[in-house]
């Protein structure tokens, strides 16, 4: 399916989409620097390069639509409207973090925004999203669920079982394959038995579409059609977005397994944000205003996070059970 160039998308949506994509990029670039500087605890997986996927899809979703994310979840969170200040505090493990500092980068969730959590277990979000989609179907209000997965992770049994379950239960659930070409360091052709995930979807009786994931407009248009189909009771769908990972699997990954020039080429020639800026029709002044806002927001989020107190030690025991 080819969808390129400017569309009839409203100015407000375009501006909001750019703001979210730019926020993700700036947030991730900053984390990359701060991780190198040694001020971010734990380990983290950056979403930079794939912004047009999360934002192209989540632009169609409301807070009542739910998403299940992956270990590479910051982009999905920001695209779904999770508070950036609280996210940064969470990644630094501080008070005021969206999960009180108890989850960290791999477990950011905001149920009030329909964000069911990043996930440290590959493929584990798919069964959860089936349940969310079942709840949507039973409520009958046209809400839908979306589960994201990478080209490696969607080979997990949990995802394949979930594709079958979603089909037999006719769930309003979209499986998004973010195909960035690598499962950690292993190239896609060595992890996946088919070259197109559309073949997988066909095997489970669900329609599928493949798009250039670097083209916001292609993602936005395809996702819009598929989500509308789900809202009307059409059952599950799959959307494969061919995209690119700017940074390593995790921070500290040297990426020497990638062909010479591949990473440089990604930044210079395959940048979804630059492509959006060139084709969106938004004026340079509008884009620059967003850039300045976002830079300030991310800077402030880091300053606030580093100033925020660590969790009180009695927090250790809280939140295991509703009651015990």
């Amino acid at each position: 399916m080819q969808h390129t160039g400017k569309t009839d998308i409203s100015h407000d949506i375009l501006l909001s989409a750019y703001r979210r994509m730019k926020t993700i990029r700036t947030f991730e670039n900053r984390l990359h620097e701060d991780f190198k500087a040694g001020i971010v605890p734990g380990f983290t997986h950056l979403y930079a390069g794939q912004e047009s996927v999360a934002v192209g899809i989540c632009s169609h979703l409301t807070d009542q639509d739910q998403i299940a994310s992956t270990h590479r979840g910051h982009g999905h969170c920001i695209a779904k409207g999770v508070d950036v200040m609280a996210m940064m505090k969470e990644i630094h493990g501080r008070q005021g973090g969206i999960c009180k500092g108890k989850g960290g980068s791999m477990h950011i969730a905001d149920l009030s925004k329909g964000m069911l959590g990043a996930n440290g277990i590959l493929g584990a979000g798919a069964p959860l999203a089936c349940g969310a989609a079942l709840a949507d179907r039973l409520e009958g209000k046209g809400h839908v669920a979306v589960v994201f997965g990478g080209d490696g992770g969607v080979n997990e049994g949990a995802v394949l079982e979930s594709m079958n379950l979603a089909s037999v239960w006719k769930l309003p659930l979209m499986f998004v394959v973010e195909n960035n070409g690598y499962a950690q360091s292993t190239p896609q052709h060595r992890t996946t038995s088919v070259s197109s995930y559309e073949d997988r979807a066909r095997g489970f009786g669900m329609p599928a579409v493949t798009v250039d994931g670097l083209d916001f407009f292609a993602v936005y248009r395809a996702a819009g059609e598929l989500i509308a189909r789900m809202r009307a009771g059409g059952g599950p769908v799959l959307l494969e977005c061919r995209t690119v990972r700017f940074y390593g699997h995790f921070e500290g990954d040297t990426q020497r397994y990638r062909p010479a020039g591949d990473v440089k080429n990604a930044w210079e020639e395959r940048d979804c944000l630059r492509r959006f800026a060139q084709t969106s029709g938004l004026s340079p002044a509008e884009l620059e205003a967003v850039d300045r806002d976002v830079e300030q927001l991310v800077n402030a989020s880091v300053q606030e996070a580093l100033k925020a107190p660590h969790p009180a030690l009695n927090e250790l025991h809280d939140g295991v059970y509703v009651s015990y």
Partner: protein
Amino acid sequence: MTRHVSLKSAINEALDQEMARDPKLLIFGQDTAGGVDAGGETDTWGGVLGVTRGLYTRYGDRVIDAPPTEMAYVGAAVGAALSGFPVVAEVPFIDFMGVCFDQLLNQAAKMRYMFGGTAEIPLVVRTMVGAGINGAAQHSQMLTAMFTHIPGLKVVCPSTPHDAKGLMIEAIRDRGPVIFCEPKYLYETTGPVAEAPYAIPFGQAHLAREGHDVSIVTYGPMVPRALEAATQLAETGIEADVIDLRTLSPLDIATVLKSVQKTGRLVAADEAHPRCNMATDIVAQVTRQCFTSLKAAPQMVSAPHTPVPFSPVLEKAYIPGAEQIMAAVTRIMA
């Protein structure tokens, strides 16, 4: 009104009454109804051993037959519960938990904590435990301790029809995930059960028999064996407290300690393998917390460290029974 019903019927009644009370409550499982759309009669099974029979007929599409893919439908139960629909999901045998373990270990158990205390997951996973029906190595295990180990899960294992009904209702009304272990060997045993709905709070052990010489602490299918042992011991002049833990997480250790402070002797029994089971846990806690009350070294009764054998003769030798409990009591009284 109180009638005598089987443990299996008591669970069915609890599910039925809660389905009637809460119109959002769902039931998932394999063959939960059985044979829906197969062309013949529907609702012929009610799960593999018939616990949910009749519920599809009464509650229709809220009783959902899932494909035999435990990972997907248990995970979907977690997701639906998180999204406001409480679910009772059946994993037929606890032995099958390996297939869906991630969804319980890493998802259901941890979400509330990882998400800063915001998530509620009103989920019950019903599953059958224990040996005694020639189910062999993959349909007979007593893996309760594995789940007890995990923060965020509650673990229940009733021994009587009365407790099974009250604990199931409590489990359904709980706002977090509960692993409800049903001793299939006791499914057909009968006992008095009140017809009106009632809930038994978690973390309250039941003193099933009162004595003063020794405390026998156990749960689930070992309770009737402990009571049988206690009856026989009484004939030799030894009077035992028999404590039925009822819930393994939370654990009512206070009732155990109080009993041991009275008797000075502890026999802890679990049908599970002998390492890191409920008996070892009870002995450790008692030894640490009331060492000076002990008149003799605590004794443990467990199955051997082997898979459950198929041969009926070997299986009988595998399952710890009243005889092993009596032998342990004899050792500790010596």
